[in-house]
């Protein structure tokens, strides 16, 4: 039945007809207006106040932001989120791409391997954090394991080492997220034409060269989507830190998301917390805007959402 039958609808009746649809969208409208827009603007507004335990509505200009930039704990948080973010992104993309390529070599038990690579993503960051905290525990975990095996001088105390603790978060984060990236990139690899491989074989181009020079550019959209997903996950990182290190030792693994929570609910410094939240918001917008523009902007090719 390919023929669409136009329904004649009289204008004054359309409003009553569409009323139920409008009513159905009321919860969405409330969520958007009150939470997504209202609460966000309120947060930004509060970042310009001197609010401590309770919100006030005075205006102190950029005072909270100045305080934020002079706050050692915040500066550590930013440094950590940059280190964590860079390594987490590179780790997930490189390992995820390698896993996708290797699993795409017509291997046996592909389904089982995929299941194994992806299962960490089904679990909570709290679970991931606690498991890795236990495994990397210097007294009873990996360090002891290697020492007991005969290598007495082996040390792996990153979890309690101020300089190295952020790298343990990278390990756990990659462990949890890389399966997702593999799944996204694998879907892209499966979309590469078989003819491309035939042509490359005829021309005698080495396989690795085809992957780097031809396949990778084809996978560009998937790589970009993965990067955006990972970048957003970096800004959000909170549960993992709380479970694995709780910001420690000392303040050496603090993160901005945790800074906000601590200053809101423990340190009763709402203004400063809201300044940090606004800072996170700006970071996300900076990541999101170019991507949204390239996907849905005027120059983007129309494609089904």
């Amino acid at each position, binding site marked *: 039945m390919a023929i669409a*039958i136009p329904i004649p609808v009289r204008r004054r009746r359309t409003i009553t007809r569409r009323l139920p649809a409008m009513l159905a969208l009321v919860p969405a409208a409330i969520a958007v207006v009150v939470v997504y827009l209202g*609460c966000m603007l309120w947060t930004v507004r509060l970042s310009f106040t001197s609010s401590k335990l309770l*919100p006030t509505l005075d205006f102190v200009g950029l005072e909270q932001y100045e305080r934020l930039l002079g706050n050692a704990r915040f500066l550590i948080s930013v440094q950590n989120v940059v280190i964590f973010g860079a390594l987490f992104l590179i780790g997930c993309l490189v390992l995820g791409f390698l896993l996708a390529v290797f699993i795409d070599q017509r291997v046996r038990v592909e389904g089982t391997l995929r299941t194994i690579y992806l299962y960490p993503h089904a679990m909570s960051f*709290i679970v991931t954090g606690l498991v890795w905290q*236990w*495994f990397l525990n210097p007294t009873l975990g990996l360090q002891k394991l290697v020492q007991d095996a005969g290598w007495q001088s082996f040390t792996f105390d990153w979890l309690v080492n101020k300089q190295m603790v952020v790298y343990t978060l990278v390990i756990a984060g990659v462990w949890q997220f890389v399966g997702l990236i593999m799944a996204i990139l694998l879907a892209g690899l499966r979309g590469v034409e078989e003819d491309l491989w035939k042509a490359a074989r005829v021309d005698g181009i080495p396989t690795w060269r085809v992957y780097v020079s031809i396949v990778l550019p084809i996978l560009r959209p998937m790589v970009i989507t993965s990067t955006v997903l990972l970048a957003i996950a970096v800004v959000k990182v909170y549960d993992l830190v709380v479970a694995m290190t709780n910001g420690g030792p000392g303040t050496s693994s603090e993160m901005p998301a945790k800074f906000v929570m601590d200053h809101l609910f423990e340190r009763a410094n709402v203004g400063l917390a809201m300044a940090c939240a606004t800072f996170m918001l700006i970071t996300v917008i900076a990541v999101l805007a170019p991507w949204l523009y390239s996907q849905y902007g005027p120059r983007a090719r129309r494609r089904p959402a």
Partner: protein
Amino acid sequence: MTAAEPAGRRPRHVTWGRIGVYAFLLASALFFLLPLWIMLLTSVKTMDEIRLGNILALPADPTFQPWIAAWSEACTGLACDGIQVGFWNSVRILIPSVILSILIGALNGYALSFWRVRGAEVLFAVLLIGAFIPYQVFLYPLVRLFSVFGIYNSLTGIVIVHIVFGMPIMTLLFRNFYSSLPRELFNAARIDGGGFATIFLRVMLPMSTPMLIVAVILQVTGIWNDFILGLTFAGRENLPMTVQLNNIVNSVQGERAYNVDMAATVLTALVPLVVYFASGRWFVRGIAAGAVKG
């Protein structure tokens, strides 16, 4: 779209390259399985064995005592009722949150796909962008707002929060699905005199089974694994399992019972893992569709 066959070259015989491929894949599989293995082993060992033995070794004297202790005796602060309290709290949060968020998502998707409502597209765009914004940006005003309405620290509060923050992905999921259905279907139903609710309940919803499965998988794992929202909005009486787990493990004074900790961790991971292993390819579909949620 996705082809069913792998795209790589077809292997002709065993070469060093093939061995390398398998070596890499197996080494990676070990890396992913190791924490699960350690978690399970530790949870059935005695503390003596944990202190003296090898973290990878099979238990000499397997015991389920840590599991029992984790379930019904482990302490969070002053209360020592085990993680079962958190389990039941999570169940009480999960059921209404999953049902309501899926229902609202389906309704939104349906209204957006078939009923031209003024401003609906703008609503949808803001919702989608909102999905990317960290919770910290909304949390504090939301706490104040909920206090005013008297639903801060309550089951109602946390369910509303899950509905609101699940709305972007649920709406996206159903909107994409309903948009892919032929428009004639809707027109035919209109000609037969169907109104908004009738068409939704008798035509659309019965066709939505695949999306409903994906939505249930997404929401069950997502809401079960949530930590920050439960911590902030549920209140002392309703803390979900993830929050209780973290309290049990990380706020203990004195010597830590690692076997009990790991048993509690396994118990918390169990629900999403069962969903994951039981749903197989559906889970991959779900996260591919829900990738926005990050």
